[in-house]
């Protein structure tokens, strides 16, 4: 066990965990931030996507010991009131079915738009390809990303 000071959603948080613990389980089991989801544990499905210094990153294979001073943003910290343009677009298009993958989808989409405010369809697809939606909301997700890009 070791103590780690983490910068999460603009707040410093201290946890005492095994250094090999992935950030996913630090967030969920130790900090009660459950919006970041467990889907595969091998960075294949994207359900655990967070921002690490603004870059979409899979939290399930990011060990807590490797984070250092980097800033972590989770779905809970994307906006204060759930009114980030991507979140608003998701609601407007009524994207979710089961909803489980959507936090990860939103985190990937918001990181994309931060770097590329007007992505083409192909750019959206390439950026989002690491996020699986088993319910098949892909067409609505693309629509919502484009709507968010407009606003």
């Amino acid at each position: 066990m070791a103590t780690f000071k983490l910068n999460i959603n603009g707040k410093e948080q201290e946890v005492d965990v095994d250094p090999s613990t992935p950030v996913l389980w630090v967030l969920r089991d130790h900090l009660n931030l459950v919006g970041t989801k467990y889907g595969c544990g091998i960075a294949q499905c994207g359900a655990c996507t967070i921002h690490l210094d603004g870059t979409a990153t899979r939290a399930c294979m990011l060990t807590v010991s490797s984070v250092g001073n980097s800033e972590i943003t989770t779905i809970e910290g994307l906006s204060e009131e759930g009114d980030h343009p991507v979140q608003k677009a998701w609601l407007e298009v009524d994207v979710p079915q089961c909803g489980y993958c959507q936090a990860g989808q939103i985190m990937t989409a918001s990181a994309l738009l931060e770097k590329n405010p007007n992505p083409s369809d192909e750019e959206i697809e390439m950026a989002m390809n690491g996020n699986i939606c088993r319910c098949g909301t892909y067409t609505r997700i693309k629509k919502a990303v484009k709507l968010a890009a407009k606003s």
Partner: protein
Amino acid sequence: MTLVKTKIGRRAFIRNTGLASGGLVIGFSWLASCKMTPEQVNSLPDEWFDLNGFLKVGDNGMVTIMSPNPEIGQNVKTSMPMIVAEELDVAWKNVLVEQAPLNTDIFTRQLAGGSQSIRQGWESLRMAGATARHMLKEAAAQAWGVSADEITTKDGVLTHEGSGNSAGYGEMASAATAIEVPEEVQLKDNGDFSIIGTDKKNVDGKKIVTGKPLYGLDVYKEGMLTAMIVHPPAFGMKFKSMNAESVKSMPGIKDVFHFEAYPEDVEKQWSDGGAIPELVAIVGDSTWECMQAKKALDVEWEEVSKLESTSYHDEALVSLLDKAQEEPARKDGDVEAAFKKAAKIVESTYSAPYLAHNTMEPMNFFAHVTPEKAELLGPIQTPEFLEQTLVSRLGMPVEKIDIMMTRMGGGFGRRLYGTFAVEAAAISQKMNAPVKLVYSREDDMTQGTYRPSYKVKYKAGIDENGNLIAWHVRGAGTNDDLIFENRFPAGAVDNYLAEKHSLQTNVTTGAWRAPRSNFIAGAEQAFMDEVAEAAGKDPLEFRLELFDRAINNPVGDPEKNDYDPERYAGVLKLVKEKANWGSETGKARGVAAYYCHNSYVAQVLELEDGGDMPRVDKITCAVDCGIVINPLAAKNQIEGGMIDGIGHSTFSAMTFEDGRPEQSNFDKYRLMRHSEAPKNIEVHFVDNGIDPTGLGEPSLPPAIGALSNALYNATGRRYYKQPFINDKPPLVG
């Protein structure tokens, strides 16, 4: 207005203050952690009045509607309360929705499966709203000294024009609780609907996009331990021994033990299918610590039955396709005689592999079992059946078992089989502590309960005028006999023979979204195109001809046919019009239609240019599900179903080597991704006012047929073997 007796499910309408104000709901503090928005908090009433188990009215006119059925992403948590709100006549913005706990005294069929929630809930949901509205009207009539018949309602306001009296529901809610539940109530005419048929957004939408705790895996409670299981690595193996001691001393680990999840004397329900009787449990403080212990644990397994491989399943199914069924499932006329005089014969065999459900949220459940009480909370499609198994497994009376459903990160049939909840309860009982059982993705994918592997052989005979005169289908599946003998084209062909076989295997199988239909529809609709081509006819017109036959001069007893040919033809005609079928688009197209789970769906699918596996550019879809409750969400289900069908038939497969699943995570098990998804989808509904049917499944099966047919038109190859991405069929002709 339609007058209906409240007798059906009448006990549901007898006031039950226990549900709304206490008992289960308050017992689970986890729900309180799902915070409301500030607007919702500000609008909460000082007091709620329970008019029946389905709803309560606040003194300020807010209404809470209980959503009885489990929510797996089919959106019943929005659409079922919409039906109650419609008949109650309350403004949707003043409605709060809560997931009801399992309560068989109040609700009927609290199950998510078979696309039946809306169809089978329709009447009781309407009655729940109408009964409460009646009681509010009676209360107002007594207060104002007027006849209730003269009182009208709109958006939660009662009005008596003659006397000029008017009151909100909140003002009459207290008095309404004293009104006797009526023997019969009037329901609205369809034309008076103001909520049903309008787009309403997902009631959990805000919580989903902000990452609030909603799912079973999000349950964290005081003193809760995490548990994981280790199951046999191959079908046909069972536990022998392990080195638990060294693992027990690992950090955060509380216990490691072998246990019988399903001892022999447990009275199993159908929902326990796929149960693995013996497992190893690892219990600890946190998920990661349990995962580490799981890796370190060395378990020895022993072989107890044949270790089956995919090659064995395939060979055994092929040999079944060569075997006649002793008593055919259905036989009209004489196919053999018809084949002898046919001008043309068409024959093809189609196949599909096992599939895993792969809900994005792996299996999990929270259980807290003490000698006095069992509390269970988590994602389950069949809470009523789970309760029955727990009575037997825990040796507890039903009154001591409380089950609450969380929102589910997908179901697709997997969560019909609540073995994981029984395992959680058994582990909690042994540990005498609150426990959340978590399956890793690998546990989830290799545990079984798969969509069976299937093969089907078709043979059709066409006369010299291009008429279909004989149709023979023989199907086989693993633990499942595949064929619906009374579905189309039964009833539309003079000589028809349907035969089916099941191959018993120890690889466990279960219902997977649109069971059987998820394979047989695609095969049948692809074969239909082969036959149409041999007959020299347009594939869509060829189908319509067959429906004409089934409408005007059906073969055999039409009551036996499991479809309405007019509604079937109706969706084909609608899709023909909306997709401009027959016009030249320059793109390869395919058509298909199917009926299952009480709804009719037809699709025209269009492919992009290029390659052996071109991407879907556009799907035009026509649906007849009767009244559409919530078009926005209905379209979402239809879009998702088609993407699901196209994705799995193109990319996905579970295979086995000596009983071991060869795929255990998304690196090897391929699911469709963004850049492979259909680009455009258009959905059209038949507007016929018929009572509504479900949409969770019906759009999936035909999409595979439409894809096969479009692929043929694009590539000149007939794709017979799923997943299509691995198939290399030869060019035809």
